[in-house]
């Protein structure tokens, strides 16, 4: 028995969410009276693999097949399912991010396992296995019962947190069987975002809506984001108008995010927008309309013109940073 965690890497490094997954799995493994095995695919050095022990992984499997350099859903699913079988995993945990969403359903079918996608916490019961997940676009939680002996979960980011529980993991090379037919797609061109904080991984997000009036007015937002190390986001009308790229769109049909702090600037707060950001720990709304529905969701509100409020806020943050 084991809880298997797929830990994705970015250019050989793990991220906060990888450690959150291990922390979650460790807590779950305690309840199930078993241990945590992490699976890494790709080139990650031993020190980085060993660091997964810090959060409770007792074994790390490293699959370094050269063909697994970019995500091929079918091949990755095969590798992860083979690792689950080898370790006799009863639970397989993924992040609820692009990769997890792409691969977990395929792994579930291979293992004849029930899937809970967008899990929001530990199971309320492990026999029967009932786990809370997000549903209806963040407006509610659903408790899902999984009837199968093996369960596949994708954990919603920032819904559990990181807990240290140092262990000395054994590192094991893992060589799964792969067929040429597992590689039916090939990456022709990669356009990586470098030097920018990823929206789905950001602790602070500065987001703006139609209230900014024009794409030329984004400079004060960029300055605020740079000052506090935030990622930029926007509302749907802004991306539909082409003011900002659609990757920045947060909301029901865009990205669903859960940062610690979310600035909603010139965003009225339509239900579809709130659906994408309601899991944020704190929302700060800046809007000149005091009746904007965003103030119903926000923890802190400022009524005012963004073009004046933003520079003042950036200055206040700079002052804060200088004195701390």
């Amino acid at each position: 028995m084991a809880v298997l965690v797929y830990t994705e890497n970015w250019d050989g490094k793990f991220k906060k969410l990888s450690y959150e997954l291990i922390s979650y799995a460790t807590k779950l493994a305690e309840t199930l009276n078993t241990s945590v095995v992490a699976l890494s695919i790709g080139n990650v050095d031993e020190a980085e693999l060993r660091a997964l022990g810090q959060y409770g992984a007792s074994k790390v499997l490293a699959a370094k097949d050269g063909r697994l350099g970019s995500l091929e859903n079918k091949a990755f699913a095969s590798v992860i399912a083979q690792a689950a079988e080898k370790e006799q995993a009863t639970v397989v945990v993924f992040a609820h991010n692009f990769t997890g969403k792409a691969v977990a359903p395929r792994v579930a079918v291979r293992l004849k396992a029930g899937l809970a996608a967008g899990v929001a916490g530990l199971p309320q019961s492990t026999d029967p296995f009932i786990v809370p997940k997000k549903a209806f676009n963040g407006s509610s939680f659903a408790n899902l019962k999984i009837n199968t002996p093996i369960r596949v979960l994708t954990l919603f980011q920032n819904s559990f947190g990181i807990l240290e529980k140092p262990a000395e993991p054994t590192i094991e090379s893992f060589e799964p069987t792969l067929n040429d037919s597992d590689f039916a797609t090939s990456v022709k061109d990669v356009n990586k975002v470098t030097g920018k904080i990823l929206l789905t991984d950001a602790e602070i997000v500065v987001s703006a809506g139609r209230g900014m009036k024009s794409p030329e007015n984004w400079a004060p937002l960029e300055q605020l984001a740079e000052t506090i190390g935030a990622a930029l986001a926007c509302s749907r009308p802004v991306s539909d108008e082409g003011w900002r790229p659609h990757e920045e769109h947060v909301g029901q049909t865009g990205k669903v995010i859960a940062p610690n702090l979310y600035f909603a600037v010139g965003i009225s707060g339509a239900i579809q927008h709130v659906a994408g950001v309601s899991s944020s720990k704190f929302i700060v709304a800046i809007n000149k309309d005091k009746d904007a529905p965003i103030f119903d969701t926000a923890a802190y509100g400022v009524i005012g013109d963004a073009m004046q409020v933003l520079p003042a806020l950036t200055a206040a943050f700079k002052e804060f940073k200088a004195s701390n």
Partner: protein
Amino acid sequence: MKILVCISNVPDTTTKIRFKDNNSVFDTTGVQWIINPWDELALTRALELKETSGGAIEKVTVATVGLTGAEPTIRKALAIGADDAFRVDSDPVDAYFTAAQLAEVVKKEGYDLVFCGIESSDYNGGAVGGMLSEILGFASISSVSAVNYENGAFTFLREIDGGKETLSGNLPLVAIVQKGIAINPRIPNMRGIMNARSKPLVVIPAASTDNQTQYVNYELPPAKAKCKMVDAENMTELVHLLHTEAKVI
């Protein structure tokens, strides 16, 4: 070559979500049903590809798993321009059940390319496309934000955590699509609505599968505390609150 677009029948995105029977059942009273937004964009793009393929793409079919209540949604998909439709006559019990039903349709009709929306806007599982591809043994590409067809080959733009990649893929293939695949969904015109009435909509019985998961009950999140207002002239105060009270900076 034939394209299948999988359609989910979901509550309108402005629906106020309520539950009944001791929070065990989603209350559908007064709910307006629509084509899942991503599926609607997928259908729009599939039709554009067909129209510009010079006859290489012969047909765009839509399929849904749903009871008769889903018929207006599937008729709307026909009105938008799909050539024909399948409805598997059952409640979509869970993602695996739904994927297994759609797999039967694909096997029977032999589609080369299948589009699924990245998730449905009700249960947000995002699993049907991936499961469908695995059941069929097809390749899959997820979080696709553009599909093009040129010189007899498809290319896909997909978003990854940290960038974008352009891929080629051998058919048969399941493309799981998100925003960007089409800018705006196509709106049915009067002629489309008239034509939709006579287009084939085949109802097929559900195949039996394992019952892997079921919803036990639902919870609404705790109510938020009232918003604390900070004077626009006093941003130092806001920074102070974020530091000492929220403790997020």
